[in-house]
């Protein structure tokens, strides 16, 4: 493994966080993380991004939107 592995590390992150890397590649990446704090931080933030985005965009459908949907569909069905 070269010293300058960050670009390759980023390319492999998806497989790393999803546990799809070969055992050998996983060891290589873990060794790189141990001596490259920026890559370790990058991996952690990459891994957390879907959760943060999912929680931040979570929404409850407003009751009035449900009511308008029901009225809309009733009206359209009558026109069929």
């Amino acid at each position, binding site marked *: 493994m070269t010293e300058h592995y960050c*670009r390759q590390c980023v390319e492999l992150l998806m497989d790393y966080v999803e546990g799809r890397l070969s055992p050998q590649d996983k060891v290589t990446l873990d060794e790189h993380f141990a001596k490259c704090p920026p890559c370790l931080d*990058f991996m952690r933030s990459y891994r957390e991004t879907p959760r943060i985005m999912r929680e931040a965009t979570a929404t409850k459908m407003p009751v009035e939107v449900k009511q308008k949907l029901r009225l809309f*569909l009733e009206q359209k069905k009558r026109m069929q």
Partner: protein
Amino acid sequence: MTTTAEPPVNGKSDLALIARVRSGDEDAFDALVERYQDKVYGLALRLSGNSSDAEEILQDTFLQVYRKLDQFREEARFSTWLYRVATNTALMHGRSKRRHQAEPLDDYLPKFDETGTFASSADFGRAARADELLERKQLAQKALEAVDRLSDLYRAVFVLRDIEDLSTEETAEILGLDPGVVRTRLHRARLMLRGYLGNLVGGES
């Protein structure tokens, strides 16, 4: 005691409800709407970026489902078919209503120097704590804006796979893509959004 009455629609499977809709049972269609309206609204909101468009997409989606239910083939899951209708409706809606091209998020992709090392010594760790560092309402607004700034290529993949938590295969089926293409686009979307969060919390420029 036995009864010949039909069981209530709420406990029935999707396929059982669809069979009843096809035989003219309107209550069964209402039960399908009740079952999936929150999911479709959430998907529409994340794909469109605003509540008024999401409401129109929601209505158009269920109207199309009502009109096109005959086209649903039972070898597919109903939820997959419904998500495809909703996603296509949202993407078409976006193309016709988007007044300006959103500023893309490519600038937030990681940058490397000629040796393959990160070009800046940014604090990449702050992005992982964006939900702790930002006020919830502010993050919610910025997150929707960020998803909206992804191009169609990336937005639908990210929303279906990472937000709605569908599998890669199901996402590929809904979008008519190869699973490998889904993974490539998902990775790039995650990188852009990760960088966006990092910039938002002041760790990266």
